[in-house]
């Protein structure tokens, strides 16, 4: 338990280190969700349109 608390404290720099990793994770997740989302939206719309033509 102490080891975890020690780790999370980051030698007193917790309030700088963790937000930095948080921002990086949030940004990369946004890139992933936005990129894959735009692909899936386009794929669905295209399938719907091309399916109608058949």
């Amino acid at each position: 338990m102490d080891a975890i608390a020690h780790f999370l404290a980051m030698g007193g720099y917790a309030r700088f280190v963790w937000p930095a990793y948080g921002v990086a994770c949030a940004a990369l997740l946004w890139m992933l969700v936005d990129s894959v989302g735009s692909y899936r939206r386009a794929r669905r719309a295209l399938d719907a349109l091309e399916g109608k033509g058949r």
Partner: protein
Amino acid sequence: MHRFANPARFMRMSAAVLPWCGPLAGGLIAVGLVLALFVAPPDYQQGEAVRIMYVHVPAAWMASFVYAVMALASAVGLIWRHPLADIAARAAAPLGAGFTLVCLVTGSLWGEPMWGTWWVWDARLTSVLVLFFLYLGYIALVNAFDEPARGSRAGAVLAIVGIINLPIIKFSVDWWNTLHQPASVFRLGGPTIAPSMLWPLLVMALGFMLFFAAMLLVRMRAALLAARLRALRMAASEDEARAPRRRPRALEEAR
């Protein structure tokens, strides 16, 4: 070059690359996180705060690298009218803006405990802020035209002119007085950073690089599908316009 210009070929090749590029990027970033948070030693001066480096520095490298990719793709699109180049430049821009934002925010979070300030208007920080605005300006510009090709051309000119900012960012720490430390990895005479810190940094940087490559391919695939969608819709509406159609009733009555 034009071997890769065929969108159908691009769809096939990217579909073959993505299933290993994406997971490899995720795996490298996961390993990089373990190395950065658990394995790398605390700095003798900065203590644990040095761990911010493992996200700040790869994000900073990507901020400049993605801009170089965007400007190069813009030039290829402008000069050779390569059909995938404009799409690549447009797809890179939001990713580059994301990395630049991470660089700025993590830098600020590192500056406060180490320099005693969140922000300083010196050459390095200001030139990276300019890079962020270049990305935003590019995104706004390419979307400001009804015709996508005109937007891409205008954006390409901006992207190419803005490349002057990249050497300014790189050498700003040598040319001007600054709080920011000089290069410790990509420098003449080799890295000055300790190997125990260099390895986690390189693993994370490679992870970021592959992540960018995977996201770029996904976004380009999405843009190609969207272009096909636009073309199909346009063809459908033209068919409709050509087909003999009864005049709308309201118009008939108005006469």
